[in-house]
């Protein structure tokens, strides 16, 4: 374009937050005393000054339109003095010092289809990823999986029916942008990738493709007089790292890209140390638009946790207490040989003791 540019870029970095803070927040910044949870979806913070601030939290689709965001702004203008914020799990929060505004906001949020909840011992919304809507390497969708899961867990988002917080994540490739969570839904491929020898030399830097494989399964080769790579099917464990590095090594497949469920991941330091999740179900079909098989596994896990978990105990802490055998029995999931770790540090996950439950 030849339009003359009149603006010179300002490398300002993160957006300044001063103008984004609610006046009651500004006034009591760093001087909060305690908080209470009056009811699901609502927080009440009390400051040393005696000021109180109510927060209403609601779930969003994360993939928002400007129309929805403007509606959120309307509600914020009407009841929250023109301010709002978001949580890392894509919930929106409105703050107000006026208790009367709380119920009014809840009503308006529900009227535009946003559930109020996600605070306290309940399921919060899902940390999720881009998927087919926008990423260049996904084997499944992000927002669609989340929509299907949260439809089933709607009541668990809005009510306190869990022993403790339940955090979920989804990831649409094995790289796992969604991260650790009480229950993580992650793609798992079940076949080696297919190399497109015709285009690879022009599409990718071959040494990088060779270097990216965690198990050194990729080797340089020549096919039809063209530089290419080959995948050692014996070594390959279908992680898809190569596809992320080189689009000519296609791993995604409509049938063979499956879904696995991992439980017991935890980010916080409360009680137990942060922990990585463990695989408890896999080879679930990638079944859009509703992923019923994945939903069924989540239901089984949460039904058992709801029944047996104790107050404040996170999913992984419950399993630590009752043991994996009991977990598999109670959830009706099946432990398989493939769930024994075989990568680096695998031995740290073995039972090197005489402890056993019968």
């Amino acid at each position: 374009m030849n339009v003359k540019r009149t603006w010179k870029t300002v490398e300002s970095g993160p957006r300044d937050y001063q103008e984004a803070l609610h006046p009651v927040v500004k006034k009591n910044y760093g001087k909060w005393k305690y908080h209470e949870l009056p009811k699901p979806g609502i927080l009440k913070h009390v400051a040393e000054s005696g000021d109180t601030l109510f927060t209403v939290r609601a779930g969003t689709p994360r993939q928002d339109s400007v129309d929805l965001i403007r509606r959120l702004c309307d509600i914020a203008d009407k009841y929250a003095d023109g301010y709002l914020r978001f949580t890392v799990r894509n919930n929106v929060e409105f703050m107000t010092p006026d208790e009367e505004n709380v119920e009014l906001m809840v009503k308006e949020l529900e009227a535009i289809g946003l559930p109020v909840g996600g605070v306290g011992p309940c399921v919060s919304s899902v940390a999720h990823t881009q998927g087919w809507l926008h990423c260049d390497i996904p084997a499944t969708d992000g927002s669609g999986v989340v929509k299907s899961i949260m439809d089933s867990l709607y009541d668990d988002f809005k009510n306190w029916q869990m022993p403790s917080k339940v955090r979920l994540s989804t990831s649409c490739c094995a790289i796992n942008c969604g991260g650790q969570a009480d229950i993580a839904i992650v793609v798992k491929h079940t076949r080696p990738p297919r190399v497109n020898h015709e285009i690879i030399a022009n599409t990718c830097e071959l040494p990088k493709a060779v270097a990216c494989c965690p198990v050194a399964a990729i080797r340089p080769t020549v096919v039809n007089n063209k530089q290419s790579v080959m995948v050692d099917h014996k070594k390959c464990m279908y992680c898809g790292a190569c596809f992320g590095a080189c689009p000519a090594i296609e791993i995604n497949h409509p049938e063979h890209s499956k879904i696995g469920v991992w439980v017991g991941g935890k980010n916080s330091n409360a009680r137990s140390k942060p922990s990585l999740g463990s695989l408890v179900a896999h080879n679930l079909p990638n079944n859009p638009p509703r992923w019923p098989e994945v939903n069924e596994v989540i239901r089984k896990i949460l039904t058992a946790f709801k029944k047996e978990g104790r107050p404040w105990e996170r999913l992984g802490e419950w399993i630590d207490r009752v043991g994996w055998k009991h977990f598999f029995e109670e959830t009706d999931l099946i432990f398989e040989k493939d769930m024994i770790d075989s990568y680096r540090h695998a031995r740290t996950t073995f039972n090197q003791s005489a402890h056993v439950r019968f």
Partner: protein
Amino acid sequence: MDEIDMDNEDEKKSSDQDKKFLNPTPMLDELEEGPWPSFITGIKELAERTKKPMLRGVMDQLEYSYQTRMGYWKGGLVMVRGYGSGVISRRTMIKDKIPEAAEFHTFRVQPAPALHYSTKMLRDLCDTWEKYGSGLITLHGQTGDIMLQGIEESKIQECFDAINQAGWDLGGAGPAMRTGVSCVGPARCENACYDTLKLHYRVLKYFTEDVHRPQYLYKFKFKFSGCPNDCSNSIFRSDLAVIGLWRDSIQMDSTEVLDWIEKNGTDSLVNNVINRCPTRAISLEHGEMVIDNKNCVRCMHCLNVMPRALSPGRERGVTVLVGGKNILKVGAMGCTMVVPFFKMDADEDVDKFIELCESIIDWWNDNGFEKERIGETIERVGLKQFLTGVGLEASVDMVAKPRSNPYYKSKY
């Protein structure tokens, strides 16, 4: 309903369809059912209102993905002037089939720390985005960016100039410093042991150059949590986690403790507080709750259960952990504590902290391989070497326990 009605219903549907801007998307339509807010309903409404062909293309491609269970975006290079990152290029692989999805590039925009907004900021951003782009926005990406999704390359510079003028800047991508994440911290949380918003702001501002011009071995992410509850999920999700804590004793309001026991009962105190302390640092002595602060590991549990009665101590600061990441390439790793306590009160503390971060990043860029996250470099080269390289004191806080194998070069 009898058959004739059904037919009418179908006819009515198809004549409605005639007036519609969007093509039929039967599979996506199933995601409009159910109580959770539907992103499909949102995109449809936006598309029908704005009639942007690009949105029709995206819906057609998404429907095709649902039907064929494959993705159809390819990456590429699209930039704004002077920057080497911040725009994610998206073009369809199936242009013949869906020409309207030809281009759908994304801006990663850095929000304010802890994702606070005034409606003015957000409305202006929406207006600009509707003018130049698709009107579709992700709030927020997992790395913490606002993602403005869907714009043509020809409009990128003009759009960026407009949002930059309004005070926004782009986030990172590729082997660069990435956008930071911070918890709500002192803005609204009594547990905050330092100013997460300010530190996030100052640190990311300092590294702005490295956000915009990828020149690292790989990505580097900061996350800031005000206390060990770690609401920004820093330990497994960032290369450098800054977590607030205190060094002295938990502050206890004994009247509030009694009130709590009155309300919840001694059973609850024993079952939910005392028995859940990971180091058994809490006991009942003559009916009174006592905390052995020397043995408290600052896990936050008791403070979470009794927020009115217990609060963090007064001597506050941060602990610094390094090297968290997810699966690629050697498996998921948590951050390792490398500075048990760092004072974070005055501006000079912030300066010192930034200096430390610089030497950590320099060490990594000098010692790591290409595409290696700092956690992997430390694992490969050794934590001992990292500490020496950066000039940090070794301390027993950095290990779960001392080594249990004898393969090392001892000093003599």
